[in-house]
Each structure stands twice: as C-alpha cells, then as structure tokens.
C-alpha cells in the first residue's frame, strides 16, 4: 500500500462512484449505440441546441476576445489558487458566512450531513449542482435518514426515474416527453392522471409538485458557478427559479463548491456571464442569476455555509498540462458538438462528467489508471476546442492522457498490450531493409480476405485493430516495387 504524505496532491478516492463507471467506455458505448430510442432523443436534442448556440454566439462580435479573456483569467487564477481561496474564505467569513474545507467526497458529505442535522431538518431542497452529484451527496444524506429533493426539472426527472444524469446541463436529455410523462404519472404523488406529454404541462406539474417544498424547506443545498474572492460573492446561474427559491427561502443555505470555481475579482464575472449562457443554453442571458455575499439581515438565509471541495482537483492542478481542465465552467457546449457524445449519450462515459470535457476531467480527477479508456472516447476532430468558451484544448489533453496512460502502464510493468508488442516488432522489422521488403510484400496476402477494398476482421492479435475499425485492402504492389517500375518506364 502506498503511503500518502501530508500535502501531496491526491486523486479522488476509488469509492467515489460518480467518477467510476461499472464498465469500460467501449463496452458501455456498444450497449448505448444499440438503443435506437436513445440515439433519436439525443440526435434531436443536440441538433436543437447546436443551432441555438451558433445563433447566440454569432451575435457577439467580440466573442473571440471574450474567449481569450476567459482562458487567461482562469489560468491566472490557478497560478495563485491558494491565495484566492484564502481571500475568498476571509471575505465570506467577514460577511457572516462559515467556510469549511473538504479533502474528498466523504469529508464533504459528512460536513453537509452534520450541518443538516444541526439545523434539525430531515430533508433538504437542492439546486442542480455538479459538485454534489460528483460526491454522491444524495445517497450519503439518504443513509443518514435525510431526504434530498432535486428541484431542477431535469434533475427531478432523473431522480423520479431512479436514473443517473447523462448531460451536464440537461441531465435528462436522454428522455423524450412521452418518457417524462410516464415517469411523472408513476412517481409524482397526486399528479393529474390526465397529464399530457406537452412540455408546458409537464413543467407545470413539476411546479405544483415542488411548490410546497419550497415554501416550507428549512435547509437548501446548492453548488456555485463562480465565487468572487475579492467580495466573497457566490454566483448561481439558472433558468427555472428553483435556484432562487432554494437560495432565498430556507433559513439555512449550504453551498458545495469545487476549489477551481473561484475567480479573483467582480469584474471577471463580466466575461463569464457573457460566455456561459450563450454557450450552454444558447440564450443571450439565462433567466435568473443570483449572487450573495455572506448573509443579509432580513433577507434570505440567516445561516450560510460554504464548503470548499478538493476531491481530486489538486491532482489535476499538479499535472501541468491537464491543469487546463480545471478552467471548465460546465457549459456543456463540447458535449453538444461532439460526434461521439451525440451517438453514445452520457451514460457510456460512466462519470457524472460526460462528453469531451468528461473524457479528460474524469481520468484527471481519479488518475488515468482508474479510467484508462476515457481518453480514447474521442475522434480528436477538434469541434470541442472550437466550441469551448474558455478555449480548453481538449484534443491536446486527450492525447496527453493517452500518452500518460501508456507510460504509467509501462512503468507498472503490466502485461504489454498487443499494441506495444506490435510496435516493438515493427521497429525491429523496419530497422532491417531486407526483412522490411519481405514484410511489405507479404502484406499483399491481406488482399485474400478483403471485400470491396476493406478488411472487416483480422485474426488475433490483429483483431484488436479491426474490432473498432476496418483495415484498408493492401495495394497490389509495394511502394518499392512501384518506384522501381516507374524508374524503368522513364
């Protein structure tokens, strides 16, 4: 067992289930691809949002300058992350809030559970939050006898459907209106049995269902989109008003926030509040953004707790290339433009963070050996980089993680992969001209099993290549033969 030294950056523990899928990406993707309903739902939804985003972005003539600023502010913040967090803690404390620190998911869950119990509550209302999904807060609260009510419509659909989120912004993107109606009819107490599958009627059913909860809840739990170090201001960006309800009405508010969400100054928000809504929902601005600094007498919660969460983030920070993944503002634009995500959906990634950013962030948080297939869940087409509002170079990060994964496996002297064996053999053959000439001529044998210019399956160990792609039919002559022939003709 390896010893953990105090102050060494640490990955998210292996028992953080929301970051560890039950099967590798290729296997999960194969199951997802066979689900034609899922592919139809996803195809329609991502096409809609891609169109809206493109129109909203095209309207902004300084979009590229905003992206550069968004990238640089995040990079500058990470370079002094400790200082900014200390300033944030001080500003929040001065304004009547209490700041807690959590090394990992279990510690954060323990702090929240104790705070809810101290408030004398046995239930909480929740604003959609990636951080609390990541740490499995709802499950931890349930074990302590505390019910957590998701109030975002999509999260509610996921929770009532005993399902898991498949998209950062729209966790129920894999469900269509008919499926949502069925879930509501089955799981929502007192729902109108004549409920139609019209999105408006379904949204109204959710409003009625949650109204009493909002008006009587004693504790709310939220995440945060941003936290301003200078002013101690927390920011939650939302659409439905469920966020405002949770942030305003219950007497106690608990906010769980990843340490990378801090920004140095109030003026930094002018960049992100332009980039985020247009990138995520394709709107000029989201309907509601709430900001608060500590507590305000006579207005909103009179007790405010902020939990600053590591859970693998310091390990990401320690990777001087991978660090860039911490710049993510969770807009989900990269998911919507990704040809892989559009076909497999979010569940195949086995992580609460799916899509291109999930394929880098998840292995960075857990260590790449815990999620070795995710860096390969991409065609490296680059659409994610173009869409990213803070210019995270996701394709380069994927390549970096593929290299890390190979290096780490070699270091650990794990059984060499057929890829490693093939490369060793190739390097030996290619270093011997006569052997290489023979080998390229021998490859012509492949023509025997080719059909219409393609080889669909090769015998082991080469089957590892053709399991996921066709091999081209070898040409009738080798390059050397073609070259010599050409010389003779001239």
């Amino acid at each position, binding site marked *: 067992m390896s010893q953990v030294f*105090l102050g060494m950056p640490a990955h998210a523990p292996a028992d953080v289930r929301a970051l560890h899928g039950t099967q590798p990406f290729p296997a999960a993707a194969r199951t997802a691809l066979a689900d034609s309903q899922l592919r139809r739902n996803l195809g329609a939804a991502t096409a809609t949002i891609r169109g809206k985003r493109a129109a909203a972005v095209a309207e902004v003539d300084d979009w590229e300058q905003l992206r550069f600023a968004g990238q640089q502010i995040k990079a500058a913040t990470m370079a002094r992350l400790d200082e900014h967090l200390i300033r944030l803690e001080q500003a929040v404390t001065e304004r009547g809030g209490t700041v807690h620190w959590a090394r990992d998911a279990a510690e954060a869950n323990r702090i929240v559970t104790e705070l809810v119990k101290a408030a004398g509550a046995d239930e909480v209302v929740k604003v959609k939050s990636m951080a609390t999904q990541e740490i499995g807060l709802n499950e931890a609260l349930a074990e302590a006898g505390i019910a957590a009510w998701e109030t975002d419509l999509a999260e509610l659909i996921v929770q009532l459907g005993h399902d898991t989120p498949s998209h950062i912004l729209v966790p129920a993107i894999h469900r*269509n209106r008919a499926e949502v109606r069925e879930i509501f009819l089955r799981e929502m107490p007192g729902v109108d049995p004549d409920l139609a599958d019209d*999105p408006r009627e379904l949204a109204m059913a959710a409003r009625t269902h949650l109204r009493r909860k*909002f008006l*009587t809840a004693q504790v709310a739990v939220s995440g945060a989109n941003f936290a301003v170090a200078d002013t101690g201001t927390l920011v939650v960006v939302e659409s439905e008003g469920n966020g405002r309800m949770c942030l305003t009405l219950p007497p106690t508010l608990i906010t769980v926030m990843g340490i990378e969400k801090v920004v140095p100054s109030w003026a930094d928000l002018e960049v992100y509040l332009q980039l985020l809504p247009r990138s995520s929902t394709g709107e000029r601005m989201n*309907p509601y953004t*709430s900001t608060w*600094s500590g507590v305000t007498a*006579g207005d909103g919660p009179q007790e405010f707790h902020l939990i600053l969460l590591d859970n693998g983030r310091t390990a990401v*920070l320690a990777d001087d290339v991978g660090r860039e993944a911490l710049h993510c503002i969770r807009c989900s634009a990269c998911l919507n433009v990704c040809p892989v995500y559009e076909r497999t959906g979010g569940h195949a990634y086995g992580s609460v963070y799916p899509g291109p950013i999930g394929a880098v962030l998840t292995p960075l948080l857990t260590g790449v050996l815990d999620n070795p297939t995710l860096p390969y869940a991409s065609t490296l087409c680059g659409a994610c980089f173009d869409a990213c509002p803070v210019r995270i170079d996701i394709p380069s990060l994927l390549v970096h993680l593929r290299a890390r994964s190979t290096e780490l496996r070699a270091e650990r002297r794990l059984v060499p992969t057929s890829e490693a064996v093939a490369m060793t053999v190739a390097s030996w053959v290619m270093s011997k001209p006569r052997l290489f000439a023979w080998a390229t001529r021998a490859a012509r044998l492949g023509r025997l099993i080719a059909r219409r210019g393609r080889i669909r399956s090769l015998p082991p160990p080469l089957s590892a290549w053709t399991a996921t792609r066709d091999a081209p039919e070898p040409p009738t002559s080798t390059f050397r033969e073609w070259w010599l022939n050409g010389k003779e003709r001239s």
Partner: protein
Amino acid sequence: MTTGSARDEVLARIRHALSASPTEPIEPVRGYRRTGQYSPGAPQLLDRLTERLTDYRAAVHAATPRTLVSVLEAALDGTRRVLVPPGLPAEWIPASAVIDDGGMSPAELDAVDAVLTACTAAAADTGTIVVDASPDQGRRAITLIPDRHVCVVRAAQVVQTVPELLSRVDPHKPLTFISGPSATSDIELRRVEGVHGPRTLIVVLLSD
C-alpha cells in the same frame, strides 16, 4: 481529524501542485468591449431592451411620468392582492397595495397576486434587469413568490453591455439578474416560459 487540518492540507496540496511547475502571474488581456456605443438611456438602447425582453416573452410597456399611473394600473389589471416594497415612490403605489413589512412568510407571500418594484440597472444587449434589495425593490422573496412581477425601469438606468451593468451594481448586496420570466428547456430542449419564478414579467419603461 479537525476541519482546520483539512484546510491546511488542501492548501498544502495546492502549493505542492503549483511548486512543481511555477508560473508567473499573467495579467489577463481584456480585449473585449467594456462599454457600449450608446450612452445610458439612449433611445436605441430602450428599443433594444424592449426587443430582447419581448423575445423572452416578457411584456414591455412604455410610460412617461404623466402616463405612469395608468400604465401601472393596466399592468396590474386582474390582480387582487398587490404587494410593494417599503421604499417605492409614493406616487407609484396603487391604492389597494399592501406594503411589505418583512414579516410575511413564504406561504403568505404565495397568496399575493402581484408585486410592483423598481430596479437597480438594466442591460439592453442581453435584456437583463437587476434588482438589489434596496428599499424600492424589496427583499428577494417578494419578487420571487408572487406570480406576476411588474418592474419599473427608468430610462437612465439602461446601459448597453454586461460589463457596464456589472459596474453599476454593488456585489455586497444580494442581487438577482432577471432576463425574462422563469423558463426551462429541460424537456427535449424546447423552451417553456414560467416554471417556479413569476410566470408573468411586465416591464414598465419610464422615460421623461
């Protein structure tokens, strides 16, 4: 272990992570637009704000000091219980309105039909209005629970860009940025207006 040690440990981890590859702090380049081409209250901005809010399915009515009372009456038409914050200008307050004393519970606010407030500032480019809990805007709950929010925006409060908007608000106050009535796109990414926040937003644009 105590919470104090978690703080020390997370900070030590961060310092360790950064020490391996120290980077010089860079000053971010802010090459984007920080001020608009129109000055606050310009007619072009009022038109743009109106267009953007209408696009979000909010209703916008123009008013002058002379027509304001009748415009507000029309905006509150059909409501029986109207709430106003304690510092609203006296001449705006409808005769039947109740003045919020901070004592009404969420359940009591749920029985109110409409709320009438002022605002802090607005941005035309994004169709955004900010309320900051000042006496003429009230505590956050009163603009949240009643199903209709009538908000008076003075022409001089309308700026063009988001950076200008943020420079005009006080980050230490509890702020709500409102861009249209509450909405969701969670089912098949089809936008539906009106979920948990006020389902009707009526903006009254007050010019001299």
